[in-house]
């Protein structure tokens, strides 16, 4: 950066010189707002948790009911994210490659879980899969119980996680270069081989990112799960619900402990997503 010849050029400044006004005001407001709304309350949570100490946190996590809830949350979120990756890839592929009547409508519908309030999704899924519901009744005849079991949680988490996978993979499918597929076909690969050996590896980083986003959202999800889950302790209780239960019992230490474990998990997932993207940028030259 070329600086004017005055002596001020050597003075270190926090921001690069600019003729535009308003930096101090907007930067100050941004920091103050973030500090009060986001950082201060989160810092207090971390402070309270550090007061518990590592062994205090461990004791909370090892309490059988908490351990069961954490296990349920992580296991079911993992399963739901995996299912979302498979069907999300198909949906993203169909939406970006094929033209058929109603494609635009289908594309818009994918965002429904982002727009529909979680409580609404929760009660409608619960009604849908209840033993007398539209899907619950035929499933009950077949001997499958979804509502008030872990399968119910799975259904709800598939619902909330799907758009994360589709919206992460879709732009990448649109940007795939036709030359690669053509080259593969010229070299004698069948269509299936091209998809499996050429396209899927290119989409892998986006699929992994989508998986991580859906997983993180699943672990954090509350509203759409609690109605269909039935919330039986040790069976279909999720970790966020247990925070609410602990709060209702005025067990602030317990609530803080579970919240901290979940917060640590979210940061770990954020880190993993950044690593995937850094790796992908290095390997493929794009995110």
């Amino acid at each position: 950066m070329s600086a004017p010849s005055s002596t001020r050029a050597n003075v270190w400044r926090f921001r690069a010189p600019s003729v535009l006004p308003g930096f101090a005001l907007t930067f100050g407001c941004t920091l103050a707002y973030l500090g009060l709304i986001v950082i201060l309350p989160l810092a207090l949570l971390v402070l309270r948790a550090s007061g518990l100490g590592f062994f205090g946190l461990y004791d909370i996590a090892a309490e059988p009911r908490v351990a069961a809830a954490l296990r349920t949350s992580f296991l079911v979120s993992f399963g739901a994210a995996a299912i979302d990756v498979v069907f999300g890839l198909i949906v993203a592929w169909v939406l970006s490659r094929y033209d058929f009547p109603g494609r635009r409508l289908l594309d818009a519908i994918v965002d429904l879980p982002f727009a529909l309030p979680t409580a609404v999704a929760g009660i409608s899924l619960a009604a849908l899969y209840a033993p007398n519901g539209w899907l619950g009744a035929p499933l009950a005849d077949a001997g499958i119980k979804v509502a008030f079991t872990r399968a119910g949680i799975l259904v709800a988490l598939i619902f909330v996680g799907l758009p994360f996978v589709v919206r992460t993979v879709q732009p990448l499918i649109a940007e795939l270069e036709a030359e690669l597929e053509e080259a593969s076909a010229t070299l004698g690969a069948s269509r299936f081989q091209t998809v499996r050996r050429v396209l899927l590896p290119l989409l892998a980083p986006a699929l992994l990112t989508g998986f991580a986003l859906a997983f993180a959202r699943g672990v954090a999800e509350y509203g759409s799960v609690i109605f269909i889950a039935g919330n039986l302790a040790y069976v279909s209780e999720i970790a966020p619900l247990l925070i609410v239960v602990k709060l209702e019992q005025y067990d602030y230490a317990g609530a803080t402990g579970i919240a901290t474990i979940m917060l640590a998990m979210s940061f770990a997932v954020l880190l993993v997503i950044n690593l995937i993207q850094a790796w992908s940028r290095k390997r493929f030259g794009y995110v």
Partner: protein
Amino acid sequence: MSEAAVAPLPKRPVARKATDETRLTRALLIAVSLAFLGLFLVLPLAVVFAEGLKRGVGAYLEALADSDALASIRLTLIVAAIVVPANAAFGLAAAWAVAKFSFPGKSVLITLIDLPFSVSPVVAGLIYVLVFGSHGLFGSWLSAHHMQIIFSTPGIVLATIFVTCPFVAREVIPLMQEQGTVEEEAALTLGASGLAAFVTVTLPNIKWGLLYGVLLANARAMGEFGAVSVVSGHIRGLTNTVPLQVEILYNEYNIVAAFALASLLAGLALVTLGVKTFLEWRHAEAIAAGRRR
């Protein structure tokens, strides 16, 4: 290579190229997508309206005219009326600082702005209980001054601000970054004040992205459940937002009323999706930066 050596390829999908799937595979994949989306997304949406109208339009309207339901609608509108403008102002300020200037630690700041998206809504509620609750940091001070934040409207507003504060910022920041500072600098050289440059040059450039962010923030603000449920205290007619009222009605087995009220939120979601799709279709370029990230 001579032109004649390469036969002109027909535009797809006239005949199957080596880089297309067979017609059967296509049909199968489309069918799987339709079935999956129908089963997991469309059906739950349809249930909301079907259950709400199960006992007819009369019962539906009666449920909406209930005084507790009306109070919850009023509270939700009040909360959104505070939260959405506050977060829009925050998003614009943050975008101006981040996009128009360069300073160290910018990526850290952007990460901090996005942070609420990766925090569980329940945890978002909990942290405000830790700060303002009766056993919290300011709890005794607040009660000594007869002020209440948790279990009343200010707590609901704070928790909703937390969960929705990234929406506008994350749409507007990439957009402003892409547009650079040249136009504003030109405006300043021509004698415009900083504010005038912002209003007449920057705002028109980002208006669709801003609207997009506001739309998403509003949908989330009106529909937030987890965070609000922790700080609200569920006092009927006072601190119940629409989603919380839906929960109470549902748990009381007042199914028709619960789904009638829920259908309002589902309608809001549909309108949001409709406007969103329209913006993405008509103003794709104007909002693209936010989605290219």
